[in-house]
C-alpha cells in the first residue's frame, strides 16, 4: 500500500510538471505581448517602466523566464499579480481559496447525500412513472445552463420572495465596524466544520461494533457533545453574527449548486445499484425473507456505494471548474471569479497561479480517490 502511494506520488509530480510546462508555453504563445499591454500605461515614466520590466523579468528570453518561473514555483513563489499589483499571486490565492472551498464543499456534500438517497429509490422503482419524472427532472437540472439557472434562482428567491441577498458574500453595512476581516471568519468556519466532521467520523467509527441500543445512545450523545463544543467556541468569540452573515449569503448559491449537481450522483447510484442487484447475495437476502427496505439500504446500497464515493471525492477536486460560472453569477469573490477576471485582463501570473492551484488540487483528489477505493473495496489491493 505504502509503495503504491509513493509510486503514485512520483507519477503525480511528473504529471504536474508536464501540466505546468504545457500551461506556461500555452500562455506564452497567446497573440500580442501582455507585457506591452501592461507596461504601456502612459502614467509610467521610462525609468519606472524599465524597473518594472526587470522586476518581472520580461526583458529575458523565454527559456530563461521559464526556468526562473519553475525555480520560484518550487520555493512557493508564484510571482506578482499585474491586476492586484503589488500583491503576490500566493497572497491573492490564500485570500480567495477559503471562500471557494467553503461554498463548494458544502454544496458537494449536500448533493452527495441528496443524490445517493434519490438514486437508491430510483433503482428500486425501475420502470415506474416516478422514475421517469425524477430522471428527466434530474437530467434537466444536471445539464441546465448554469448561469441562467442561477439567475432564475436569484429572481425567485431574492427579487420576488426577498428571502436571500442578491449576491456577494457579506453585507457591507454590517461589516463596517467589524473587529476582524472576512477571511479570519471564513477560516474559522472552515476549521470548525472540519473538526466537527472529523469528530463525528470518529464517533461513528468507535461505536461501529456495539449493539443497537448502546450504539444509538452513544452516537446521540456524541452529536450533542460536538454541537455543544461548537457553541462553546462560537458564542463567546464575538464574531458569531459575522459568521451567520456569511452563512446567510451562502444559502442561495449552495442551494443552486446542490440542485445542479445532485442528479449526477443520483444517476451514478442508480446504475451502480442496478448492477449490484443482480448479484447472488441479494437473492440470498430475499430468500431469507428480509424486508425490501433492509435489502435496499443494507445489502445493495452499501455495495453500490463504492463508485459513487470515488466519484464524489474526484468531483471535489474539480470545485474550481464549475466555480467560474457560479461565482460569476452570484458575484462570489472566490478563485473562479478571480481566474475569469485575470484571464480577461490578461493578468498572466494570476491565471498561471489559478491553474497551478486547480491542477494540484485535481491531482491530489485523484490520488485520494484511488486510495479510498482500495481501502473501501477489499477485492482491490494495490501492491
Amino acid at each position, binding site marked *: 500500500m505504502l509503495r503504491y502511494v509513493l509510486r503514485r506520488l512520483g507519477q503525480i509530480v511528473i504529471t504536474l510538471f508536464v501540466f505546468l510546462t504545457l500551461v506556461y508555453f500555452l500562455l506564452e504563445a*497567446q497573440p500580442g505581448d501582455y507585457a506591452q499591454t501592461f507596461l504601456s500605461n502612459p502614467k509610467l515614466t521610462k525609468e519606472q517602466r524599465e524597473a518594472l520590466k526587470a522586476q518581472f523579468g520580461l526583458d529575458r528570453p523565454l527559456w530563461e523566464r521559464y526556468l526562473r518561473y519553475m525555480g520560484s514555483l518550487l520555493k512557493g513563489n508564484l510571482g506578482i499579480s499585474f491586476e492586484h499589483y503589488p500583491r503576490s499571486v500566493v497572497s491573492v490565492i490564500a485570500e480567495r481559496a477559503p471562500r471557494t472551498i467553503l461554498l463548494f464543499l458544502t454544496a458537494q456534500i449536500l448533493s452527495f447525500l441528496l443524490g445517493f438517497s434519490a438514486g437508491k429509490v430510483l433503482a428500486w422503482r425501475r420502470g415506474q412513472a416516478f422514475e421517469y419524472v425524477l430522471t*428527466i427532472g434530474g437530467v434537466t437540472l444536471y445539464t441546465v445552463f448554469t448561469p*441562467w439557472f442561477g439567475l432564475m434562482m436569484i429572481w425567485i428567491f431574492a*427579487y420576488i420572495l426577498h428571502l436571500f441577498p442578491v449576491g456577494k458574500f457579506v453585507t457591507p453595512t454590517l461589516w463596517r465596524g467589524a473587529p476582524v476581516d472576512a477571511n479570519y471568519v471564513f477560516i474559522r468556519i472552515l476549521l470548525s466544520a472540519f473538526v466537527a466532521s472529523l469528530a463525528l467520523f470518529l464517533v461513528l467509527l468507535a461505536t461501529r461494533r456495539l449493539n443497537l441500543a448502546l450504539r444509538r445512545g452513544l452516537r446521540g450523545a456524541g452529536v450533542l457533545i460536538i454541537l455543544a463544543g461548537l457553541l462553546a467556541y462560537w458564542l463567546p468569540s464575538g464574531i458569531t453574527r459575522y459568521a451567520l452573515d456569511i452563512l446567510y449569503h451562502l444559502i442561495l448559491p449552495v442551494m443552486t449548486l446542490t440542485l445542479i449537481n445532485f442528479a449526477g450522483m443520483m444517476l451514478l447510484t442508480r446504475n451502480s445499484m442496478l448492477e449490484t442487484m443482480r448479484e447472488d447475495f441479494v437473492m440470498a437476502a430475499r430468500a431469507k425473507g428480509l424486508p425490501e427496505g433492509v435489502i435496499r439500504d443494507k445489502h445493495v446500497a452499501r455495495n453500490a456505494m463504492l463508485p459513487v464515493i470515488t466519484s464524489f471525492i474526484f468531483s471535489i477536486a474539480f470545485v474550481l471548474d464549475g466555480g467560474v460560472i457560479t461565482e460569476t453569477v452570484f458575484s462570489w469573490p472566490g478563485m473562479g471569479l478571480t481566474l475569469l477576471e485575470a484571464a480577461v485582463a*490578461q493578468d498572466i501570473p494570476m491565471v498561471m497561479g489559478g*491553474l497551478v492551484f*486547480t491542477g494540484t488540487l*485535481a491531482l491530489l483528489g485523484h490520488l485520494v480517490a484511488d486510495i479510498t477505493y482500495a481501502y473501501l473495496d477489499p477485492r482491490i489491493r494495490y501492491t
Partner: protein
Amino acid sequence: MEEKTKVITKPKVEVILEEEERKRLKEMPLWRVRLYLTWREIRNNWRLFSENKIGLVGLGIIIFYAIMAIAHPILMKWVWDPNIYDPIVGYSYDEVLQPAPPSFRHLLGTDPLGRDVLSQLMYSTRSEFALGILAAIITVTIGTTVGAVAAYFGGIIDTLLMRLADLIIMLPFVTILIVLSALFKMNLIILAIVIGILSGFGGTGIVIKSQALTIKVRAYIEAAKVSGGSNWHIIFRHIIPNLMPLSFLYMMFSVTSAIFSEAVLSFFGLLNIRMSWGLMIHTAQTAGYLLNPKTWWLIVPAGLSITLLCSAFYLVGRALDEIVNPRLRKR
C-alpha cells in the same frame, strides 16, 4: 390463451423468415446485403430504444429544434422581411420602445437592439447543431482511434496515450476553455476542434480503450491475424466497427458538453461569433436587463433552449447506454 399461442408460434415464423431471407440475400450483390443487414440492425436497435420512454422524450426535443433550424431560412426567404427580422442587423421599426414585449408580430418580443428574439433563437439553433455535431465527430474519431490503437498495440504506445489522457482529464475543462478563449480569438470551428481534441484524447479515449481491450481478445481477431491481416487492417476493419455503438453513445454526451461550453463562453462574451443562445443572454446582460423579471423574454427562451437541447442529447445518450451496456439491460 391467445397470448400463449403467440409465444409458441413466434420462433417458428422467425426461422422460416430467416431461411427465406438467406435465400434472398444470396442472390443480392454484396453492397445490398450489407445495406440490408445494417437496416435490419437499425430496426432492431430502434425497437430496443423505443421501449425507453426517457430516450423518446429526448429524441422529440431534438427533432423539435431540428425543425426550428430548418424552418428559419424558409421563413426568412418567404415570410419574414429581412430588414425587420434579420437576427443580426434587423430592426423592428413598428415598435416604439425596445425591447418590446411579445406581440403578434414578434412572438417572443424584441431585444434591446430592436431585433426579433424568435428569429435569433431559430437562427442560432443551426449553429448549435453544427457545433455540437462537429465537436462530437472530432471527439469520437480521435477517441475511437486512440482507444483502438492503445488497446491493440499495448506497450509503450498504450502508456504514452493513457498518460496523456490522464493529463487531460485532470485539466479543469471549462476553466481551460475560458482561459483559451479569453487569450486567443476563437470562433465556432476552432472551439469545436479544441473540445474534440480535449475530450477525444481524454475521457472518451479511456472509456473506448477499455471496450477495445475486450474486443482484442475475441476469436475473430485471432482468425484475422492468422489469415495474414495487417495490424491496420485489423484495427480499421475488425476492431473499430465493433466499437461503433459505444462511440455513437459518446457522441451524444460530447454534443451536450460542446453546446454547454459554447453557451458559457458566449455568455461571458469571449467568443468571436455572430449570434448564439449564450450571446443573446450576454446582450441582455450588457444592456442591463439581466435581473429584471419584467423583460423575461430576453433571457428565458435562450436559457431554456440551451437547457432543453443539452438535456435532450444527454437523455438520448443514457437511453443508448441501456442498449449498449449489457449490465444495465432489463433482461
